[in-house]
């Protein structure tokens, strides 16, 4: 994006400008660098890159000079001037602010050392808006080689050898899917890249699209060549404007170099990619719903078969793959399927990207070899909980997945092992919970989501999820009965059995897994009207601890219903009858004097 100025000794300042970096203030930091470089008359090229995954340390700024490389983390606008003056101009890195030498160095090392980066290899390394950067990392070599060899079966054989399974949640072998589409008859075939990433709590695909869009385009073109498709769509959710913008730039750049478009790289293969923006419907991540959406309809799933491979977009053979799946393809073809299959477990090969979020110290995006344990990811890479309290569970697979309790953290990351716990591998969201998270509340959260997002076609999914939600609401208000727990289970199984698509078939999973592993929490809500994690508001009582209250008046000023009274410097009183349990008082109290029971 930025024109490189004549830099001194190749001095480069690279700033991570993914959505998360920008949200953490990276754009302001970049603007500050522009000003500071000018003010100190330092010549350096200021460049952008995507997210390197260490979202917990954003904004991240890297300085390259000759063979020297320094990374600054958590950079604030105020620090920029000093970095420019002392380091860029004076040649003395401010070591305590860097991630290599600073106090956080061991943590950064822990975050990265267990990772194995394939899909994320270029994220946070290259400038996603420059095709030259991608080309310099062997970009488009796999496509060019495949076109030069002109052997579609060889490409598919390589994909089959790799053992790559779909990263969108289903886990279907990618090579096999390509083979089916190749074998299908049709005058026109399509490739679709599923970039709908609807699972709330997941951002793997966003980071790949923002950080390395060309890898996805190259993967799509290879899929097109192998299956015989000449036209393609990327269906991207509208909540990802930066990803869409970078994809558009990448497509234009690839077309300019004849790496997409007519007769690619002098071959007979033509491949054109269009972008379709989603309009906000979780169910449109499901492949048949997605196809209806591209065709301009309401996104309601249909019965399969016929599978999209035989009858997909506009009734033509269509191959649908997820973003991360496609991003792995160029690496696999460059390094061979066997190299990919060398990593992982018997039935789950390669690496998988996870989005670590929730009550975790080092949240962000991590790519790990399959077969690693959940414990290694959460404790060694993620550093345990952000509060220091023990971890209680991890939610995997979003609304279709389940909560895996701490006692099962030795479960390996493997499609079948994770499924055995009642959760699913899913697309890669990992939301971590500690003892301040209520499992009834989490189950209610997901049911609320799926209930709203159900397209309404199947009765049990439409009405059954609502009934389940009502029961959960009742329980979280302390009005549940023990028989409700059985009713939840009964409804859960009926919804799973009678729903057409994955949404309904998996919607009850969050409830079933929490009931299985955390039944005692449900029982506490029902039998003793108590929320052990102190999350369910109707079950809490607020009072003021007279020994601790210093009469600072903060709470009485913030209380929206004015139920706290008292004069300055004297102990305040809270009227429980009027209290709406909003929690405002405890949020502002500096003396820990608000007692919650």
């Amino acid at each position, binding site marked *: 994006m930025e024109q490189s100025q004549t830099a001194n000794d190749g001095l480069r300042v690279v700033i991570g400008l993914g959505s998360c970096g920008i*949200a953490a203030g990276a754009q302001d930091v970049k603007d500050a660098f522009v000003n500071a470089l000018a003010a100190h008359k330092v010549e350096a090229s200021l460049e952008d890159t995507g997210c390197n995954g260490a979202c917990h340390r954003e904004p991240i700024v890297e300085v390259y000079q000759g063979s020297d490389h320094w990374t600054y983390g958590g950079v604030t606008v105020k620090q920029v001037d000093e970095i420019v003056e002392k380091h860029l101009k004076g040649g003395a890195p401010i070591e305590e602010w860097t991630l290599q030498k600073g106090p956080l160095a061991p943590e950064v090392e822990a975050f990265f050392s267990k990772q194995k980066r394939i899909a994320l290899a270029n994220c946070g390394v290259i400038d996603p808006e420059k095709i030259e950067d991608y080309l310099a990392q062997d970009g488009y070599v796999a496509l060019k080689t495949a076109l030069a060899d002109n052997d579609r079966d060889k490409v598919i054989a390589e994909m089959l050898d790799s053992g790559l399974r779909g990263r969108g949640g289903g886990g279907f072998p990618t090579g096999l899917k390509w083979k089916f589409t190749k074998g299908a008859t049709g005058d026109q075939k399509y490739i679709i890249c599923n970039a709908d990433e609807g699972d*709330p709590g997941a*951002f793997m695909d966003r980071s790949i699209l923002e950080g390395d869009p060309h890898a996805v385009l190259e993967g799509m073109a290879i899929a097109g060549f192998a299956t015989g498709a000449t036209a393609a769509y990327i269906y991207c959710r509208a909540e990802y404007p930066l990803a869409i913008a970078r994809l558009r730039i990448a497509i234009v750049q690839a077309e300019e170099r004849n790496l997409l478009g007519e007769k690619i790289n002098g071959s007979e293969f033509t491949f054109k990619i269009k972008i379709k923006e*989603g*309009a906000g*419907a979780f169910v449109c991540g499901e492949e048949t719903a997605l196809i209806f959406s591209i065709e301009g*309809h309401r996104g309601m799933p249909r019965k399969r078969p016929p599978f999209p491979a035989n009858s997909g977009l506009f009734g033509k053979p269509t191959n649908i793959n997820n973003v991360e799946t496609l991003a792995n393809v160029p690496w696999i073809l460059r390094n061979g399927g066997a190299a990919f299959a060398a990593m992982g477990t018997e039935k789950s090969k390669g690496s998988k990207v996870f989005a670590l979020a*929730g009550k975790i110290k080092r949240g962000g995006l991590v790519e790990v070899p399959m077969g690693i344990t959940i414990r290694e990811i959460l404790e060694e890479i993620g550093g345990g909980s952000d509060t220091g309290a023990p971890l209680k569970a991890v*939610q995997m697979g979003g609304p279709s997945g389940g909560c895996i309790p701490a006692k099962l953290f030795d479960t390996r990351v493997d499609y079948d092992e994770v499924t055995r716990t009642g959760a699913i591998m899913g697309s890669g969201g990992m939301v971590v919970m500690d003892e301040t998270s209520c499992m009834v509340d989490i189950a209610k959260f997901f049911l609320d989501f799926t209930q709203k997002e159900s397209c309404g076609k199947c009765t049990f999914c439409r009405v059954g999820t609502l009934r389940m939600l009502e029961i959960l609401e009742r329980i979280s208000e302390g009005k549940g009965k023990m028989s409700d727990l059985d009713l939840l289970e009964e409804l859960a199984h009926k919804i799973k059995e009678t729903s057409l698509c994955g949404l309904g078939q998996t919607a009850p999973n969050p409830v079933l897994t929490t009931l299985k592993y955390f039944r005692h929490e449900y029982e506490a809500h029902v039998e003793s009207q108590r929320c052990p994690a102190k999350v369910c508001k109707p079950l809490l009582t607020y009072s003021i601890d007279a020994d601790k209250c210093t009469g600072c008046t903060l709470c009485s000023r913030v209380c929206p219903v004015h139920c706290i009274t008292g004069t300055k410097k004297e102990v305040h009183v809270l009227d429980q009858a009027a209290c709406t349990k909003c929690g405002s008082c405890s949020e502002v109290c500096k003396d820990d004097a608000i007692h919650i029971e």
Partner: protein
Amino acid sequence: MNGDTPATDFTPVDALVDQFGSGMEATIPLLQGIQDEFGFLPLDAIRYLTTKTGIPASHLFGVATFYNRFRLTPVGKNMIRVCLGTACHVQGGGRVHTVTREILEMEDEADTTADRLFTVEPVACLGCCSLAPVVMVNQTTHGRLDAPATRKLIRKYNKAEKKATAEQS
């Protein structure tokens, strides 16, 4: 709600039809274009689109009411998107939402303030999970919020807007 704003100038719709065509598969891009133009989908614009393209109004409404991003009522001057995805939820996004509405003195069911300066929209996930909880005001994302920080943030926007409006009149 007032979706029936008086007929305005629909020439932008013509341009959209030129760009996307009038086939069925143009439905969503056309509606997105109209919403970008007007901030919402005015009834008259949908009717106009039907005359112009021949796509049945029932189909257009069916699509418009299916997808969350489409809205049939006008938006406020500023858009506040409060993320209620999983990560934001476990980190207190619900409180951030409540506090935002409190500060803007929003009525129970309303999604837009009475003075039409702000629309508050809960969204499923903005994808900045490690900065949870997150709020997006227009194009700017604010992360790692708690209730006091949210109060401060929303008050700042509200004050700036009120001041700007007062200066105008």
